[in-house]
């Protein structure tokens, strides 16, 4: 049911973990299925230098978490804010129809983390 890309990111997730003294932290829960995702950021000169995630959720949730961290790293915060759920799903070569909602977790958590950074540093 999952694409190869999804299974790759699910079985070898990139950037799992926490960042101590992170510059920004975002946590979102998926209202529809009760799953949870947390993103940690290290930011320098408005650029995401390091990013880590922790996820309690299905295969799609873990894969999108992993993918979004790969897509975000090295981007400016403004660029990262434009990353959409659809873009993440597309980068994974698609998700099953009943799993599209899982991709919401990833981009939302990233955006929350950036907002959190901006609140802390404004």
């Amino acid at each position, binding site marked *: 049911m999952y694409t190869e890309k999804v299974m790759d990111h*699910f079985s070898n997730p990139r950037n*799992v973990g926490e960042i101590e003294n992170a510059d920004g932290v975002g946590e979102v829960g998926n209202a529809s299925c*009760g799953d*949870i995702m947390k993103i940690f950021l290290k930011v320098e000169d408005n650029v995401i230098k390091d990013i880590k995630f922790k*996820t309690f*959720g299905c295969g*799609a949730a*873990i894969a999108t978490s992993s993918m979004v961290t790969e897509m975000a790293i090295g981007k400016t915060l403004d660029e990262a804010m434009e990353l959409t759920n659809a873009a993440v799903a597309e980068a994974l070569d698609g998700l099953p129809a009943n799993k599209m909602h899982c991709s919401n977790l990833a981009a939302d958590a990233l955006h929350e983390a950036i907002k959190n950074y901006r609140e802390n540093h404004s």
Partner: protein
Amino acid sequence: MKKIYMDYNATTPVRPEVLDAILPFYREEFGNPSSVHWAGRAVSGAVEKAREQVAKLINCSPAEVVFTSCGSEGDNMALKGTVAALRDKGNHIITTGVEHPAVLETCHYLEKNGCDVTFLTVDSDGMVDLRQLEDAITEKTILISAMWGNNETGTLFPVEEIGRIARKHKVRFHTDAVQAVGKIPVDVQKAGADLLVLSGHKIGAPKGVGAIYIRRGTRMTPLIHGGHQERNRRAGTHNVAGIVGLGMACELAGQNLEQNAERMAHLRDKLEQGILNQIPDVKVNGHRTQRLPNTLNVSFAYIEGESLLLNFDMKGVAASSGSACTSGSLEPSHVMGAMGVDVALAHSSTRFSLGPDSTEEDVDYILEILPPIIQRLREMSPLYPG
């Protein structure tokens, strides 16, 4: 890669003896059992033999067995057929919150169509309260529908006592025995059941065949109207191969019932102990003694079920989960919910269900691969305290 199947409650492989019994009915014996000529005759005898085999396993007379296409059809027929036939008597049904969707969804449909349905609660072991059941009976009650063994947790309801209460109040008793038949002794007389549903693919017969026991004299409106098959109780050309397979599977199940149950219980207990000994923060879901011998349901705290299943799958192990994420539905297992398991633990619930072909090696292998998988996933979890 090693392949270990631990999902017998979902479905089972067709037993070789069953396949042997079936094959002639895909080849030379292709007739329609309703036909009077040579092509029909051989086949109608085979259908009647299968009816006897099913009847013997559940201790009823062959005329009380009606073949269906699956357990879900049987449950729909039991409920809708009773409601339509007993409309003059009442419109109240009593069932439980942990039934299979084939019963629950049908009850929700009936509720929208003029029935009152009482959904009995269960305790944290998934057990019903007989007093609550008896108190729920009113003058309008026409049916008690309570499953024999729960598909997710294996919890066994006290069907004999439920049957006694039903008889005492002259209320019809239906039991969904899809998970019980073939795993433990099932006797419709002892249970005092008026209706009982079973499904072939849970006991080594093919998918797409089942049966419903309808006690002699029980008024029922058919779910499928049409031809005269099954004494006007279920129309449609017989699934001859499936029916023959179901008969053979029932015969085989009856032959080895006790030994298989003991073997499976032994392996299941070993798996359970092994998990509890090796892994912290594990909760066993379901009744610890009143339980199907083959079923183990555990919640691995902090881990979501689907991600666990996929990791098992990568190691060749097939199991299942009560997580909403597995089904793509919005809510995790309604069974866990009814038992009061908290949402995160419900998401974590994982079912191992064994079969007659399960081995010690299967269990050892699972116990070997499990700890690192759990460790890895917990480290990925924002809920894990570390």
